[in-house]
């Protein structure tokens, strides 16, 4: 039998539907891959036993559905990973932070509940940057995630959804959930040769996802192919009255959209995305991407998004401000770790100093500072106005084009530890992804080539709000043209 972990999600679902193999078999194969890939540190909590039980139940469900002539769930029997930011009922959920201790949610996030209803088999909870704050998956209290792609030394898989990206790239799961606040789905996808889709803000319910920055957080998927990412997103997204910012709109025909012709579409190339110190390889990959899209019948339009360079600094006011507020609830009183002190204040301080890592503390401090009396107008309010400007830039662009093509990251994956003590350099990893986050737009990263060291590089498509159909169509065309088939050497086996 072929190695079931080499299949795409699409092929796996087809294989199970055709009776070529069972969910039990493909789940077992992935569990073995997870066990052999321990070195990558992609998982915080493995739930293999539950996964096997779920697979058994799934096989029974598939059989009975077949008998009654019904339709199997969109993810029926597929072994997947879940970022440890999604609360999962009865399964420890950590946000990769010490502060949550052994917190075991008595509830299931809407997104994972939707996926379970569609037949997902959950292999475990994936590692990430603590509270999704980071671009390298090194800030986890559970240790750095390792990129399956390797040079001489170990590399970061990007972040914050680094565990999701690494697990998919290493064939440890058929796909994974992820979340994006400033680039946390697309950037790690770019760093690992996987596809990462962040939908329009409001497509996926935030209910039950541990909050980082509420006005930016959005769930999405990391997958092996564009179509797999569409299948995953289709099972995750949908209106949820429990989230006041959830959009009451239907999903598009995303799976079909991946194969829709892009002929006649206009693709914008933002001139501001050419930045200093960007490796020439990334510029030439981008140029190559433009040629591929032209060949697919697309019209290329130069556009200007003049406020692009201000997106990252604005983000580093808005996101920490919201984070400082969202993380105020971790005080050791009702759940999570508590470090007893001499009095209440001392207990608060010891608990939070122990529980939060350096990057999280840094951001809480920045957030508290920019919201504090005397600084609110100069920093927070000003940044929100800049955010309006950034959003206007996109609106102007949509007058002349239907989607944008940009690089995903300004560089290739770097060595573990190299940027950890240089916050601003680390923050610059999200320079091309953060704009779409601020404007709430859908974006996808597609693997498009390798650099001279054989490391993956991605290209990004950004679309209009709620126009994931066009995003998937462009991503499908890009994927077909790039024909990216490289895989990391499985050095960890």
């Amino acid at each position, binding site marked *: 039998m072929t190695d079931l972990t080499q299949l795409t999600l699409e092929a796996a679902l087809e294989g199970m539907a055709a009776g070529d193999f069972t969910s039990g078999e493909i789940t077992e194969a992935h569990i073995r891959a997870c066990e052999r890939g321990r070195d990558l540190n992609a998982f915080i909590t493995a739930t293999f036993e539950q996964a096997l039980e779920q697979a058994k139940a799934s096989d029974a469900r598939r059989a009975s559905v077949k008998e009654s002539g019904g339709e199997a769930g969109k993810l029926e029997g597929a072994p997947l990973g879940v970022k440890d930011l999604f609360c999962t009922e009865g399964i420890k959920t950590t946000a990769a932070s010490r502060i949550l201790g052994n917190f075991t949610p008595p509830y299931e996030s809407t997104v994972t509940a939707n996926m379970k209803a569609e037949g997902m088999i959950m292999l475990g909870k994936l590692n990430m940057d603590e509270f999704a704050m980071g671009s390298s998956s090194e800030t986890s209290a559970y240790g750095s995630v390792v990129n399956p792609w390797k040079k001489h030394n170990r590399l970061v898989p990007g972040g914050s959804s680094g565990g999701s990206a690494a697990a998919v790239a290493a064939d440890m799961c058929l796909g994974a959930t992820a979340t994006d606040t400033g680039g946390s789905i697309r950037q790690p996808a770019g760093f690992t040769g996987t596809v990462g889709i962040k939908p329009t*803000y409001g497509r996926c319910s935030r209910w039950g996802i541990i909050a980082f920055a509420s006005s930016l957080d959005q769930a999405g998927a990391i997958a092996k192919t564009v179509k797999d990412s569409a299948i995953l997103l289709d099972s995750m997204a949908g209106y949820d*009255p429990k989230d006041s910012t959830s959009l009451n709109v239907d999903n598009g025909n995303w799976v079909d959209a991946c194969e829709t012709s892009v002929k006649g579409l206009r693709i914008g190339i933002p001139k501001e995305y050419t930045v200093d110190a960007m490796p020439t390889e990334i510029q030439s990959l981008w140029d190559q991407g433009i040629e591929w899209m032209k060949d697919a019948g697309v019209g290329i339009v130069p556009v200007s998004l003049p406020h692009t360079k201000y997106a990252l600094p604005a983000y*580093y006011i808005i996101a920490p401000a919201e984070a400082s507020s969202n993380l105020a609830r971790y005080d050791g009183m009702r*759940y999570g770790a508590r470090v007893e002190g001499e009095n209440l204040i001392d207990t608060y301080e010891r608990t*939070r100093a122990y529980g939060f890592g350096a990057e999280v503390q840094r951001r809480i401090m920045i957030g508290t*500072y920019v919201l504090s009396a005397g600084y609110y107008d100069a920093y927070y309010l000003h940044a929100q*106005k800049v955010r*309006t400007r950034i959003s206007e830039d996109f609106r102007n662009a949509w007058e002349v084009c239907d989607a944008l093509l940009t690089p995903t990251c300004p560089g290739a994956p770097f060595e573990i530890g190299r940027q950890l003590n240089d916050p601003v350099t680390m923050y610059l990893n999200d320079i091309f992804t953060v704009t779409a986050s601020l404007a709430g737009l859908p974006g996808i990263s597609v693997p498009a080539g390798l650099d001279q060291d054989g490391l993956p590089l991605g290209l990004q498509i950004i679309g209009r709000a709620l126009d994931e159909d066009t995003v998937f169509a462009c991503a499908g065309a890009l994927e077909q043209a790039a024909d990216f088939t490289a895989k990391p050497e499985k050095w960890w086996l």
Partner: protein
Amino acid sequence: MRDPITMDTVRKIARLSHLYEGDGSAPGHGRLDDLASELNSIMGWIEQLNEVDVESVAPMTSTVDMDAPLRRDDITDGGRRDVVLANAPKAEGGFYVVPRSVK
């Protein structure tokens, strides 16, 4: 442009966020004075935002152009104290038990 962040400010912010212990250290995370210089370099980088003309620009608080949805006034939750208290570091008699909050 703006005044650098002083140690006093850092201390005030740390106190507001209940992050650091009384002696200014956070075990495993360095000391407050290190943080002050980090914050200054980050805020220095952020200063470039002042170049943006935001005259008569409305602040953007959400990307969702919607009004707050309203829910019906029905009792749909509660009545599961065990679940609410299940993760508590300490609970007794149906209460959360926490360090004394008054002297």
